[in-house]
């Protein structure tokens, strides 16, 4: 069984700081996934440099095959020493997941990571190790699809300290908040955003420390193939449609003309729905064998807007965004964000006769840019995205 790691992280900065003192680094390889969360001493520029160095060095060394000991020793002798405190210090949490679901976790001075197996809080067995004078806790365990692992920086634990809450939010309360809020369907992005939004509220929008949440939802690998636009060369029509129909996983068609081509090649009837869930988004259609059929460029534009709201780090946007609407753009966004693990776009570059209408504010270049932006946004949510042109 192949496992995919749906990984997401988000940070809020210390009030008044432009740079974040926490840093998360993800490295995706064909056979494994690696994440490092580092929290540098203090806040602002100094903390940012410490945490960036730490996360980058560990991520690069470990993914190239170095041992934990080597990586930790390298950091200890590389980090610049703070002139005020005489210390070179950054905490870290390392998560490495193999394709088969074996997890290796190493933690140094960050709040303990929490694991949910089948939506139940599950304790992690930790082993204490001394490396270069630092006490590091390591653990090894296996995860299955549906499990969730979360780690966060101490800014989360201290949320509200001295203002709303005398002692801050405290670790146990955070764990119970997460336990109460997670559902088995919730994506890594959504649970991350929920927790961080609560942190921001407790700090009354003026965080006293950089706070970062990083979540990993383990899923069975499930790719989605999305066909957008008719191929330039008509003879390629059936090739591209076959590529879509014989792909593994979810199948999506975006575009009126495109869906008519798919209907013609497969010989299945295309039924366009009459009901509008949102007058701004054209209706969807059904086609046997395809999971979602939508209109093209307008739906993609709207979908991109939704994805941007989801990935935006603007604190005002931290509120939970509903993905439960039934219009084409929301369904596409939900499919891309929550249902698939990898996205493969098959993009046709034919000029659409519909777009020659002078009132239609859409050009081919705009559509292609839209897809590029969409791919970039999706990559930010931790998915593997590939684009192929025809």
């Amino acid at each position, binding site marked *: 069984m192949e496992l995919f790691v749906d990984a997401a992280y988000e940070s809020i900065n210390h009030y008044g700081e432009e740079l974040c003192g926490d840093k998360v680094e993800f490295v995706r390889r064909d056979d494994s996934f690696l994440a490092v969360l580092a929290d540098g001493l203090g806040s602002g520029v100094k903390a940012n440099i410490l945490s960036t160095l730490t996360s980058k060095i560990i991520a690069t060394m470990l993914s190239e095959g170095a041992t934990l000991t080597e990586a930790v020793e390298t950091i200890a002798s590389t980090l610049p020493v703070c002139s005020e405190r005489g210390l070179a210090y950054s905490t870290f949490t390392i998560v490495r997941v193999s394709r088969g679901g074996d997890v290796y976790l190493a933690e140094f001075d960050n709040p303990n990571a929490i694991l949910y197996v089948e939506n139940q809080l599950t304790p992690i067995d930790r082993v204490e190790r001394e490396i270069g004078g630092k006490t590091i806790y390591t653990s090894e365990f296996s995860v299955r699809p549906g499990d969730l692992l979360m780690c966060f920086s101490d800014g989360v634990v201290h949320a509200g300290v001295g203002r709303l809450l005398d002692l801050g939010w405290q670790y146990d309360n955070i764990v119970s908040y997460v336990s109460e809020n997670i559902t088995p369907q919730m994506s890594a992005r959504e649970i991350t955003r929920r927790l961080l939004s609560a942190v921001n509220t407790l700090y009354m929008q003026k965080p006293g420390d950089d706070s970062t949440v990083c979540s990993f939802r383990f899923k069975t690998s499930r790719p989605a193939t999305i066909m957008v636009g008719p191929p330039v060369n008509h003879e390629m029509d059936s090739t591209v449609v076959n590529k879509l129909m014989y792909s593994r996983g979810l199948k999506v068609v975006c575009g*009126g003309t495109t869906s008519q081509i798919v209907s013609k090649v497969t010989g299945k009837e295309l039924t*366009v729905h009459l009901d509008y869930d949102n007058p701004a988004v054209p209706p969807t259609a059904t086609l046997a064998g395809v999971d979602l059929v939508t209109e093209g460029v307008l739906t993609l534009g709207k979908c991109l807007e939704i994805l941007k709201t989801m990935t935006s780090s603007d604190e005002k946007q931290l509120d939970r965004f509903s993905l439960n609407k039934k219009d084409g753009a929301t369904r596409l966004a939900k499919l891309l964000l929550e249902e698939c693990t990898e996205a493969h776009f098959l993009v046709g570059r034919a000029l659409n*006769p*519909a777009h020659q209408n002078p*009132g239609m504010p859409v050009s081919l270049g705009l559509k292609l840019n839209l897809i590029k932006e969409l791919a970039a946004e999706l990559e930010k949510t931790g998915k593997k995205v590939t684009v192929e042109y025809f």
Partner: protein
Amino acid sequence: MIEITVCVGSSCHMKGSYQVIKTFTELIRANQLDDVVHLKASFCMGRCLSGIAVTVNGEPVENVGFVNAEQIFYDHIFPLAQQESAAN
């Protein structure tokens, strides 16, 4: 049965197919023609330059917009629907 198809492709959507479908649906209900008129949507019908693409029993109707949707209904659809009702 009279079959009306309204295009909901990108271009026609921008011109207001939503309004046209809404108007037609309301008029069909108001005139109690649900049994004789079947309203359908379609993706791009390849006639993007002559108003919102609409066909009545497969025959294209030109220059449909959301402002004249009611007029179009009474000019092109209502007479046919009445014949159909009478024949039933």
